[in-house]
């Protein structure tokens, strides 16, 4: 009897130990709550008149998987692979040839302010045009892309439905429309809810029982993330990124010993890009969408800065950093724990310092990062039915 009682008590103690919520301070709770709720509400992109348009989404989806946009049979999904969280798992992207940077995931891409590791794109549609034109990635061009859309009856049909007119006569205008359809499709790629989201919402609701389902190691990692680690200063908000650019001591030499200028080069390319939001293809020309492009400044410190990546679905998007140089989340945590201060700009920000984490603290931080990953895989996408409307009305808009 005594043994039975002891066993029951031990089981109860174990259960209560396994259902525990750390005693977070008010500051810690407030900081954690700012990482939600998830997902954010839908807001159409005012710079893209077909944002959220189902016909444009269907057109963009078909273009995304079409190798004919490329001179060498490469397509968007060659690097942004659906079953790999819309990245490729490689250290560096490989289009027609291998390039210097890692392929970022497209999940949640619609919530970003700048696009690409250097932010050379100020809209998702402009960024979608860039690899089509890049001779090392898809090696296509405006003429090839426009001819494809005009010559394929299914594309002509879908274009008519999405834009309400046939493809325009100017190749460049067709390319802008292709970028907008591709963007409309990518806007649908939103990560599902992660264990952290349930924990965060339970904290917000004061539901200790639900909060206690979140593993203790992840809770301890969350405490480091918003506390001693101050990770949330840059990885802020529901997306776990402030959308801006920082130098975190990752080498910016390319394999051929050339230098990747990072944000410095990105701002210069942005200014030179005819498809930027100050150009003729912004559908919100009089609005506030171009404020960032008009006011962004080029500073010397931008050399070697790269965009702060979102941490959502981090467990699915290895390898990490702009050059894919860190293979695992444990490697990323070790990087910050042993930060090479000598690699940071001497005139730069005074934000980073080595965290000096113990093995258990490092493991807890990894557990927290893994908890930002959605549960389960998205269901396979059904094949698009053919577009058979407007068979006699499609053509080329000669306006």
């Amino acid at each position, binding site marked *: 009897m005594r043994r039975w009682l002891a066993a029951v008590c031990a089981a109860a103690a174990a259960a209560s130990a396994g259902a525990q919520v750390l005693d977070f301070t008010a500051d810690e709770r407030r900081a954690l709550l700012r990482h939600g709720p998830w997902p954010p509400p839908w807001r159409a992109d005012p710079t893209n008149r077909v944002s959220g348009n189902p016909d444009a989404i269907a057109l963009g989806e078909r273009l995304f998987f079409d190798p004919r946009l490329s001179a060498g049979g490469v397509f968007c999904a060659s690097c942004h692979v659906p079953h790999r969280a819309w990245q490729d798992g490689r250290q560096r992207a490989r289009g027609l040839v291998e390039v210097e940077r890692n392929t970022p995931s497209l999940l949640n891409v619609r919530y970003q302010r700048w696009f690409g590791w250097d932010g050379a794109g100020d809209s998702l549609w402009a960024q979608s045009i860039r690899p089509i034109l890049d001779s090392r990635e898809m090696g296509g061009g405006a003429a090839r892309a426009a001819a494809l859309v005009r010559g394929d009856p299914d594309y002509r049909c879908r274009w008519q439905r999405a834009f309400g007119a046939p493809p325009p006569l100017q190749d460049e205008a067709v390319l802008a429309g292709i970028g907008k359809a591709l963007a409309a499709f990518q806007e649908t790629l939103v990560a599902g809810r992660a264990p952290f989201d349930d924990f965060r919402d339970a904290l917000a609701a004061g539901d200790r029982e639900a909060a206690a389902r979140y593993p203790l190691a992840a809770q301890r990692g969350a405490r480091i993330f918003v506390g001693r680690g101050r990770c949330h200063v840059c990885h*802020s908000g529901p997306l776990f990124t402030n959308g801006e650019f920082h130098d975190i001591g990752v080498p910016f030499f390319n394999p051929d010993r050339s230098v990747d200028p990072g944000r410095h080069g990105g701002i210069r390319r942005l200014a030179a890009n005819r498809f930027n939001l100050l150009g003729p293809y912004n559908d919100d020309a009089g609005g506030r969408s171009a404020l960032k492009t008009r006011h962004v400044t080029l500073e010397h410190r931008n050399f070697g800065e790269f965009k702060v990546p979102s941490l959502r679905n981090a467990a699915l998007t290895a390898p990490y950093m702009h050059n894919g140089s860190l293979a695992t989340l444990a490697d990323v945590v070790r990087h910050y724990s042993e930060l090479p201060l000598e690699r940071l700009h001497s005139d730069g920000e005074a934000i980073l310092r080595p965290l000096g984490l113990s093995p258990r603290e490092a493991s807890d931080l990894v557990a927290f990062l893994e908890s930002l990953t959605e549960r389960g895989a998205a269901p396979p996408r059904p094949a698009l039915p053919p577009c058979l409307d407007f068979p006699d009305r499609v053509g080329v808009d000669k306006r």
Partner: protein
Amino acid sequence: MEERRGALRRGLAALALAAPLASACACDLAGARRLDGSAVSLAYRTIPAPIPLGEHFALEIAVCPRGAAAAPAAPRADAWMPEHRHGMNYRPDMRELDRGRYRSDGWLFHMPGRWEFVFEAAGERLTDRVDVE
């Protein structure tokens, strides 16, 4: 005639006295924070308020001379995070709305924490710290 000249002189004197007062009143922006230097006062408010983290916002600024000081030229404005030793990634503009009243667009605070506004007006440097969450 002499009486009319006297009335005109008195009217002009009253106007001269009223001008600095009117300028001082221009610094009374509703909901604004006011900074006083030795020769100039400056009031500013953010649009929207409070400052949204990671989103563009604007400033409305009023500048007025103190005492008999001359009306100041357009102010300059910037912001930085003293603790982090970095500023913004954006350069705001400044345009005059009315005499002594300005609007500045293009502001964006990309990090939570303490930011310091730095205004320069009439050769004076006026600062104000705000916490952004």
